[in-house]
């Protein structure tokens, strides 16, 4: 049975919410009362329950299978964290109720900040960004503010070509000019190129945006040198923390010379992805950037924790560049992340990183003879990058290959990203997978590869065959976008037919 849209079976009269009866309200709305129908269909509660339960069953999820989306980090989401986030003392407090009535909220934020700073080796963190890309924006705004405070206005931001698209987009948003840095043959930043580029733009370097471990799944060995080069050029080192989950407890970005790094709480610390959000992207800051952290922030003193919400309340060494969002950021995500970090502890966090890297390498060795490693056989970090040369002349595209994985019960890996290799396939198993699960995945992948190489193209070109939908027409969707439901025209009744 196909599930209709709610508008196709709900009605304007139906409601699934009983409300207490009103008694004679006098309106004080002025002339603003709504006159026309809103056109919102309602469902009785049993109808709504069944509708959304059925819809959900068309989704793949980490709870139902391995989800190897490289750089997205689909790991186990403990339900303890959900339970904690729903404690009324966290979920049912208002961002603007008297500060005196929410000391536990400040304590929670401060405690999480502590865990984030210690694990990154930094001494400041801007908590409020709402997602990773928002954190990037925050970090780059802090960098811009620092330059401005120093009376500088450099325009160039260096971005390696393997970067997430958010990096150049963020820099551009702030009026920076993005200069791309090529990778070496081994997939990491080429120091020589970097030096030349810096020299070319001397005195105009605002900073670099570098992902480390990078999106090829490799740790940038020369990271310290890169940091020194950029600092010497008067720039700041922004680190995209999307892959921080590989190195928690193994190395601290602060020790690597990073000036700002956002942390995707949903990637590294397992707040649920929820079909695409909400995320949360606190940004840790070096001492040089710390003064520019945006409002609001918590000030710690002998008197306890103090919430600073306005410029009027700042001290001399606090020069917030502004505000990223109303209120205090993603409290619900803070609770989940802290619950996760406390559960792991220093030993568990380290073990998780190690297991993530171990699992990725286990997949690498399981597949490297059949699939193609663009940068040769060498250890990877938490994800392993293949290119599509193993599919050459097979008649099977990367996309086909990915869709065929669906029929085997798997979500595909990240495809066509990073852009530095052809037909990229980026596999991240995370620490949540057991060895048995990895073995089954490797066996399935091997079977698929051999099938492709044997020329069984039908298995791929028509895939998926067993999903809730066959392959969807994305081009058609974009050509003439239909972005909402509209009442179908009543069927044309010709005069003859009506008789």
């Amino acid at each position, binding site marked *: 049975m196909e599930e209709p849209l709610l508008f196709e079976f709900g009605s304007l009269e139906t409601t699934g919410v009983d409300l207490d009866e009103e008694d004679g309200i006098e309106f004080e709305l002025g002339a603003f009362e709504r006159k026309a129908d809103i056109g919102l269909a309602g469902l009785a509660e049993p109808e709504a329950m069944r509708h*959304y339960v059925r819809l959900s069953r068309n989704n793949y999820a980490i709870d139902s299978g391995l989800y190897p989306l490289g750089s997205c980090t689909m790991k186990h989401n403990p339900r303890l964290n959900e339970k904690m986030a729903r404690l009324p003392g966290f979920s049912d407090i208002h961002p603007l109720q008297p500060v005196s009535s929410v*000391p536990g909220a400040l304590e929670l934020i401060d405690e999480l900040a502590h865990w984030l700073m210690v694990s990154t080796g930094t001494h400041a963190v801007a908590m409020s960004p709402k997602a990773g890309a928002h954190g990037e924006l925050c970090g780059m705004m802090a960098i811009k503010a620092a330059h401005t405070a120093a009376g500088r206005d450099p325009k160039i931001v260096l971005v390696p070509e393997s970067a997430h698209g958010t990096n150049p987009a963020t820099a551009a948003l702030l009026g920076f000019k993005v200069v791309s840095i090529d990778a070496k043959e081994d997939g990491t930043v080429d120091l020589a190129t970097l030096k030349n580029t810096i020299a070319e733009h001397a005195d105009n370097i605002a900073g670099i945006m570098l992902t480390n471990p990078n999106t090829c799944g490799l740790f940038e060995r020369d990271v310290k040198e890169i940091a020194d080069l950029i600092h010497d050029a008067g720039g700041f080192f922004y680190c995209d923390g999307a892959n921080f989950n590989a190195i928690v407890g193994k190395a601290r970005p602060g020790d690597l010379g990073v000036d700002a790094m956002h942390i995707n709480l949903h990637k590294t610390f397992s707040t649920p992805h929820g079909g695409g*959000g909400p995320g949360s992207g606190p940004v840790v800051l070096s001492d040089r950037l710390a003064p520019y952290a945006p409002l609001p922030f918590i000030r710690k003193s002998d008197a306890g924790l103090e919430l600073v919400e306005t410029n*009027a309340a700042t001290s001399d060494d606090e020069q917030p560049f502004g505000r990223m969002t109303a209120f205090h950021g993603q409290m619900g995500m803070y609770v989940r992340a802290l619950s996760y970090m406390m559960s792991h502890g*220093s030993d568990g966090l380290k073990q998780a990183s190690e297991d993530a890297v171990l699992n990725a390498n286990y997949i690498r060795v399981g597949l490297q003879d059949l699939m193609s490693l663009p940068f040769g056989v060498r250890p990877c970090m938490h994800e392993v990058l293949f290119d599509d040369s193993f599919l050459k002349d097979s008649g099977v595209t990367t996309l086909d290959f990915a869709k065929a994985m669906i029929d085997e019960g798997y979500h595909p890996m990240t495809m066509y990203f990073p852009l530095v290799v052809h037909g990229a396939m980026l596999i991240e198993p995370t620490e949540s997978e057991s060895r048995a699960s990895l073995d089954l995945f490797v066996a399935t992948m091997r079977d698929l590869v051999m099938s492709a190489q044997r020329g069984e193209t039908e298995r791929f070109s028509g895939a998926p065959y067993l999903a809730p939908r066959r392959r969807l027409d994305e081009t058609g969707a974009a050509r003439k976008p239909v972005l909402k439901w509209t009442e179908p025209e009543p069927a044309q009744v010709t005069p003859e037919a009506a008789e």
Partner: protein
Amino acid sequence: MRYLPLSNTDRGDMLARIGVNSIDDLFADIPENVRLEGLLDLPKRASEMQVERKLSAMAEKNTSAGSVPFFVGAGAYKHHVPATVDHLIQRSEFLTSYTPYQPEITQGTLQYLFEFQTQVARLTAMDVANASMYDGSTGTGEAVLMAHRVTKRNKAVLSGGLHPQYREVVEGLSNMSGDRVVSLPADPMGTEDILSQIDDETSCVVVQSPSFYGQLIDLKPIAEKAHQHKALLIAVFTEVVSLGLIEPPGTQGADIVVGEGQSIGNGLNFGGPYVGLFATRQKYVRQMPGRLCGETVDAEGKRGFVLTLSTREQHIRRDKATSNICTNSGLCCLAFTIHMALLGQAGLTKLARINHGNAVRLRKLLSAVPGVEVLNAAYFNEFTLSLPKVAEDVVEQLAERGVLAGLPVSRLEPENKDLANLLVVASTEVNTDEDRAAFAAALKEVLA
């Protein structure tokens, strides 16, 4: 550790299979001088019971909205959310799924996004809506940037009725990107002269209704003036329930409508996560930020849904993208969709009437307290009081008496002494006669 399936035996066997001697061989790329020896200076792992104890102890230090007479609004509202909503959003298949990049196995997410977009478009009376923003404030920032792109101008005019923190978000972005912002002074009664600020350099004018102070604003003349100058009207709201009862921005001429959707389906959560609603005219759809879900067909001709128009987005366009945003507020958006599906038009309208009715009842009670003046003539579920004392002190004294009474404007606008005695008060369906009576009695006492 309970979340890690590998045993030490597994680890040993796997290292051997990989062909390395120790786990640190896999971390060899990290320069030795920055490789951490030992553990981070943090506590070791904790059992569920320990974590629960510690976090519960923190939570219990806070006064939850449900435990007292509660009248704080100003951008976030205490409403009752049906138990069904929280149950459904916790379905594994919704909670632990990623962005629907593989539409064949994420039709669940995609179909509710399509329903959501339809709901938002209808609520606002606009042509199209996106699949949500982080929240209302960041959505407002994005709306201004979008207006700049559409008009190829860079001057935004912000009403003095805009939520001060929304204003700060817009100002911050503009400061950084070199755009211009004209922010009008605080306007509790909706009497500002914004029309005169609109000129041929204006890209957009940003007006909130109901305003931060609760005042309902007539958007039509502003839209008219803006359109005369080929500028856009960005209409903002923070209380989406108001759209159940008041004329939608779409029929008043708004070009972009942006607002906070927290009231429907989502709890207070100390300010986040929330869900930003964002709608516009059909002609501007390709300049719209954020994710969009569109209808299409599969290889067998069956209807299905996909993310679409992603060529606007950062992962394709990189530094040419319309925005750097690459998430939406998925789960909050689902909560909104389900709660709104449960309400339907009938329920939303009734909910809005109850909210307004409770506000009117409260207004009458508080107006009767000696020394208190209500500044707003037309309002939905929120209005501003002028008190004979500093509002911040009054609120603290009321809190001591067990009433959380509203937001003293000075908390967000400390530098404007004219606002020191203003208190923004909200009332929703959760307030009872007893709550209101307690508020009025305590206020009388404090002001006596």
